[in-house]
């Protein structure tokens, strides 16, 4: 229980502290320190859960089971590494005058508050609070996307706010409908919104209401996952905000939104006892993969390209969870973990690369491996990993997903293969000249953050080669909870 309180309390405290002191030079270290403390607390929580099983505390308002504790640990870890990465990155930005002291304070406090809202969304048992936390996460980052005050970033932030706001309003309506169905069974009072209660009575929930509620919640939270056709905000927000924000958006926010969808899916499957929810997710997922792959090939900005890659991978994950069954769910979870790690690593390297070259346009970034071998190789390895090359983790999960798809939805496999192929060709073709090639840029003033990149990529590699037994049990338990 203390671990839980610490996991939530530390980032909240960090947000408040950094709101006051975020402009100091040491604030970057302080930020990393708070994130490290959060990570330690979440690690302690994870160990506790794996040892003793799920806990339900604080008046049943917080529920921790293997599914969300895995994501909690992942979130805290990626946040910590992003904080480490932002040290040199933000120093360069500050030296170039793009980050004023006021903006630094905003950045730091919002970074911590964002971690807080993500963790709150993961740990809460109350579907209403889940909604509030998701909306708060958008609010925490919207000012960060526009922090550079260029016309493009303002547009990106406005789109982000409005589209996500509209989307999440639909999720609220879905939650209201869910509560409506719950009230009939559980009576009024707060109990109707607690996931654990709902999970116990899910067979008794009214099917028509639940199916409509799921549609609204899928559309609503799906906007935040980046499912096509609700994805319009995603490429802009990733491309225009500072790179640490792109990393956490891709690595964390999308995951938590998908987690929210999963929780709803479990309830809906119980109430409807048919494949309605799964089929919807399969449809949206497939659409996202195909559309993202084709848009990807037309991008000129490196961060936009990787943003579309995120959409593609989230689509793949949605597809996997939609299919259901133990293998697909396992693959989905594996993919979530690996994608989170590798995509954030890619954004770290891309951030440094863009800083060096002074631009995000891919045609103008060249010869990274000559200027700074670690950044260059980091990007190369990260790209290979994200494209699904063996022996990285993404390959394993994509393989499992494709084989399951061939069994359950054979007609989707050609689409998936073509989409993955197109994405592979496009991304590889763009990254290769970026990494190799002639260039004349000079190194940066502050040495880039190497460790986070290679830690992430290394973990991605490990997931592909060998999943440690405790991680395996962890995944198995989570899969069982998804109802696979």
């Amino acid at each position, binding site marked *: 229980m203390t671990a839980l309180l610490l996991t939530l309390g530390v980032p909240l405290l960090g947000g408040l502290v950094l709101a006051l002191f975020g402009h100091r030079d040491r604030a970057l270290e302080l930020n990393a320190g708070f994130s490290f403390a959060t990570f330690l607390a979440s690690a302690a929580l994870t160990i506790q859960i794996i040892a003793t099983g799920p806990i339900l505390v604080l008046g049943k308002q917080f529920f921790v089971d293997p599914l969300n504790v895995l994501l909690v640990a992942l979130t805290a870890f990626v946040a910590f590494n992003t904080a480490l990465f932002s040290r040199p990155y933000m120093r360069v930005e500050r030296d170039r005058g793009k980050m004023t002291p006021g903006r630094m304070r905003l950045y730091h406090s919002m970074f911590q508050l964002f971690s807080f809202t993500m963790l709150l969304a993961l740990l809460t048992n109350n579907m*209403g609070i889940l909604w*509030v936390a998701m909306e708060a996460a958008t609010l925490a980052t919207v*000012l960060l996307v526009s922090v550079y005050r260029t016309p493009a970033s303002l*547009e990106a932030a406005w789109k982000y706010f409005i589209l996500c706001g509209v989307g999440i309003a639909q999720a609220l*309506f879905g939650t*209201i409908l869910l*509560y*409506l169905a719950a009230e009939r069974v559980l009576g*009024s009072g707060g109990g109707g919104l607690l996931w654990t209660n709902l999970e116990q009575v899910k067979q008794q929930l009214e099917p028509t209401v639940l199916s409509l509620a799921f549609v609204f919640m899928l559309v609503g939270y799906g906007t935040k996952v980046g499912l096509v056709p609700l994805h319009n905000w995603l490429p802009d927000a990733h491309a225009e905000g500072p790179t640490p924000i792109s990393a956490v958006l891709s690595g964390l926010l999308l995951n938590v939104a998908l987690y929210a969808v999963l929780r709803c899916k479990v309830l809906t499957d119980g109430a409807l006892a048919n494949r309605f929810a799964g089929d919807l997710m399969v449809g949206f997922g497939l659409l996202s993969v195909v559309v993202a792959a084709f848009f990807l090939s037309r991008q000129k900005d490196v961060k936009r390209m990787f943003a579309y890659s995120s959409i593609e991978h989230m689509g793949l994950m949605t597809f996997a969870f939609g299919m259901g069954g133990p293998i697909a769910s396992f693959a989905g979870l594996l993919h979530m973990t690996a994608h989170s790690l590798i995509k954030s690593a890619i954004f770290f390297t891309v951030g440094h690369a863009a800083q060096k070259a002074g631009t995000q346009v891919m045609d103008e970034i060249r010869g990274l491996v000559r200027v700074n071998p670690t950044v260059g190789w980091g990007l190369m390895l990260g790209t290979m990993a994200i494209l699904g090359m063996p022996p990285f983790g993404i390959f394993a999960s994509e393989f499992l997903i494709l084989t399951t798809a061939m069994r359950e939805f054979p007609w989707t496999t050609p689409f998936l293969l073509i989409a993955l192929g197109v994405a592979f060709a496009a991304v590889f073709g763009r990254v290769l000249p970026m990494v190799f090639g002639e260039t004349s840029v000079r190194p940066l003033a502050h040495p880039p953050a190497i460790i986070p990149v290679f830690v992430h990529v290394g973990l991605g590699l490990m997931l592909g080669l060998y999943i440690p037994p405790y991680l395996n049990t962890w995944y198995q338990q989570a899969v069982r909870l998804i109802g696979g």
Partner: protein
Amino acid sequence: MSTLASQLINLFAALLLLLAFAMLSQRRVLSLVHLFTLQGAALVASTSVMAYATDQPHLYFSAALTLVLKVLLLPWLLHRLIQRLAVRWDVEPLLNIPTTMLVGIVLVIFAFTLAAPISALSASVARSTLGIALACVLLSFMMMITRAKAIPQVIGFLALENGLLFAATSATYGMPMVVELGIALDVLVGMVILGVFMFQIREQFDSLDISHLEKLKED
């Protein structure tokens, strides 16, 4: 459950729908803010009547919260924003107004048909108003889509929240207090952020026309 209470709730529901339509057809921004305030007041009244009729004290708190937020605080913020931005618009919407209203009618019919089977399942006394709540939500969506300026889009967003809150009180016995507080906090913070935002937009573009914000297209 006296019939007077249910008639009053029906009346307020009809009033909400009327105000949603009026906002859709309004041109001037100040009248939009006034209409939004009226909508908030109607919502407060309806929630209070519900609280009285169903004997649920936490609905009184909900009504008080809505009063402070939607009738007093947010309109005041909007007025200040309009004053400081020196906004005097005669907004030309994307579609002309009669077409907008015809599409609005179609949306209302759609909302009513969608909500009909669900209202039959609700245990609340105001269940027939779920269709109206959904209609208000859809009309606010429409308002956000057809307006090309920042403040009407924001007001559409806030009206959307009004519709959702009304749906919550009409479909269920009101959401738990903690959730309501969370939603209220989100709305308030959202408003503040939007205010800051609009200054940034104005600083950059010297206008609050959203069509300036359409450069990031797919090429």
